[in-house]
């Protein structure tokens, strides 16, 4: 039987969850002996293959139109979708922005910050448009939740091994953390 395929991608996040994934250290070899990693933001191939994967992993929140497209593509191309990290599970730190008007937030980020000189709010059809920040499950169905900011390497290792064996991972004890 071929090894189950796994693809990961990131949305609006700080890359910390993927750092935590790398933090598995040599256990990555053990994971790769059980699954085939087709693509991820930190490998050469970035997008899940069109013929699909068994497990898709998304970190980060839905924060703009690009995140929305990436999430929808992953959902379409995977059988089981894992929301990895607090941003994907609950919306995370970017939800703080929801308390402000979008114009106000952009003005603050691109113009008013003390370190910015001659700032302007970028506008181009090629750029993604910001959206009200949401967790992944408010846009596409999520099968497995992996909270944590970031989830520990132990939690990610446990989850990937369980999924590779065809089981639904359950986080408890030290692996279940919200911060």
């Amino acid at each position: 039987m071929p090894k189950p395929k796994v693809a990961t991608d990131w949305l609006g996040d700080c890359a910390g969850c993927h750092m935590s994934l790398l933090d598995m250290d040599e256990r990555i070899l053990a994971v790769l002996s059980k699954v085939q990693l087709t693509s991820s933001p930190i490998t050469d191939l970035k997008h899940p293959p069109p013929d699909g994967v068994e497990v898709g992993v998304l970190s980060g929140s839905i924060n703009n139109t690009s995140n929305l497209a990436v999430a929808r593509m992953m959902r379409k191309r995977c059988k089981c979708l894992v929301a990895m990290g607090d941003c994907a599970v609950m919306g995370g730190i970017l939800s703080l922005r929801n308390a402000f008007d979008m114009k106000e937030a952009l003005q603050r980020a691109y113009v008013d910050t003390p370190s910015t000189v001659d700032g302007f709010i970028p506008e181009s059809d090629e750029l993604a448009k910001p959206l009200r920040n949401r967790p992944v499950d408010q846009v596409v169905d999520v099968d497995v939740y992996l909270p944590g900011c970031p989830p520990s390497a132990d939690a990610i290792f446990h989850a990937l091994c369980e999924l590779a064996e065809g089981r639904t991972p359950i986080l408890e004890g030290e692996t279940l953390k919200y911060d």
Partner: protein
Amino acid sequence: MSALCVTIDGKDITVESGATILEAARTAGIDIPTLCHHPALNDIGACRMCLVEIAGVPALQPACTYPVADGMVVQTESERSVQMRKFVLEMLFSERNHYCMFCEMSGDCELQAQAYRHGLAHWTYPTPNPRLPVDASRRFFLMDHNRCILCRRCIRACSDVVGNHTLGVMARGAHTMVTADMDQPFGDSTCVSCGTCLQVCPTGALVDRRSAYMGRHADVQTTESACAFCSVGCAITVVTRNGRPLRVEGGFDGPNAGVLCARGRFECLEGRERVAQPMVRRNGELTPATWDEATTRVADAFRAARPGAVHAWMTAVALTETMDAMADAFRNRLGAEVSLLSRPPEGPLPNGGALADIDAADRILVVGGDLRETHPVVAYRIQRAADHDAAITLVADGPSSFSAMAHEAFPMARLNDACKECQDAARPVIVYSADLPPEARQALSGLSTGARLIPLHSAANMPNALTLGLGGAAAWEECDLLYVLLQDGVLTEEQRERARSAAFVVLHAAYRGPDDDLASVLLPAPLWHERAGTFAAMDGRRAVVKPSTRRPESVWPEAAVFEGLAARV
């Protein structure tokens, strides 16, 4: 009270009748999850976390308010209860902002702990995330309504423990909000900033400005001590991290039952510039000096001073060990006239009462002084007793911050009439200012044999100063040397004026302040959280003060300074 037998999770437990299921379970080591329950507060069954299954009772019942009955059989972890608790938690998490990642309480939060215990990996229900206000109108702590779970612990602390009744709720259902008075900003309300609500809040809704984000419970150290700012002698826990004080918490097992005042909890940690090392006056300016240089100057001044023209003033807040060492060194070896910065009472002080007696009192006579200002924790205790139908009689001249809650008020001239009112009381308590004239105190002690009397001293360790026979500052003809042990305090205008007539002034103080310009030599004293010793509290207790942070090497213990001086002179 009769004993009842109940079965909880298969264990047979015998408890007194009147106990709740929660109390019975805890005596047997069975841990029923709770959120709105707090051991110091009355239970109201608000949060529904402690729902348990009782055989023969169709609906699940809250363990914290349900009294046990003989033969009752209870399941605390039945599938139905656990499912219901998870549902309650999911609802709580969906209501407001409970993102742990940027919350001050994360790691110490009771809501978070329950979510971990019940394995909540995500939020089942959508989070509408209403944008609620953050009330930062109070100086020491703020209220973030977005983190509030409406458990009403703060409200119960305010009303049941402090008797202040500032907090309450308004509106209904999902729109319910904790409010102060008639929806005032907290800072403009009748809140006294005692901080009891802050201490009992289970989530990050009430946030201490000073210690927020400074360390979780696992990162900090705690020291059990006593507050020595007034003669009540409240039990405190000083929370420190890496030798820096973060906050002060009230000891629920202490005589103060967890309550502190704004001074003991917050103001004592406000940033004042400390006297970090000895300073001497050169060319009219106070400049840093070594201990050797400073003590040499002081010793020279002692030697040069004429006999009878050497005076020492001591704060009556000083701990017993410091007081004894100073009295001994200055009286017996340095030949100084030692007196107190606050005027000690003359004559006997009838006593014998304690704070706990106030709880059981049916009539409380408050005589003289303004306790809400001088001894707030006693005032809160009396407020609380008034809620339990104790009659309050106030005897005072002029307006008092206590007059609004007194059932009867008399001027001081009619003290005897006020005493007559108390004659029939079954458990009278008399709280009086120790500064009353001796004849007034005489009248009080003759009142009734059953009365509990609590004298309120103007300074924390006044009882010890009295045993040393120290008096108020005596008049002097001429003063060649004045040594002032000031510690945290400041001189009164009158004292400052007198100190100016001294030829040489040594100021021994913890903080820089308005009196520095008097000093020929300024010596550093340890800060309150660096001191070790004891003091005599108002009820005769020997309160133990333990240091919670380390004294810097440039600051010597006061007793060592006195000893060094005496040895040199």
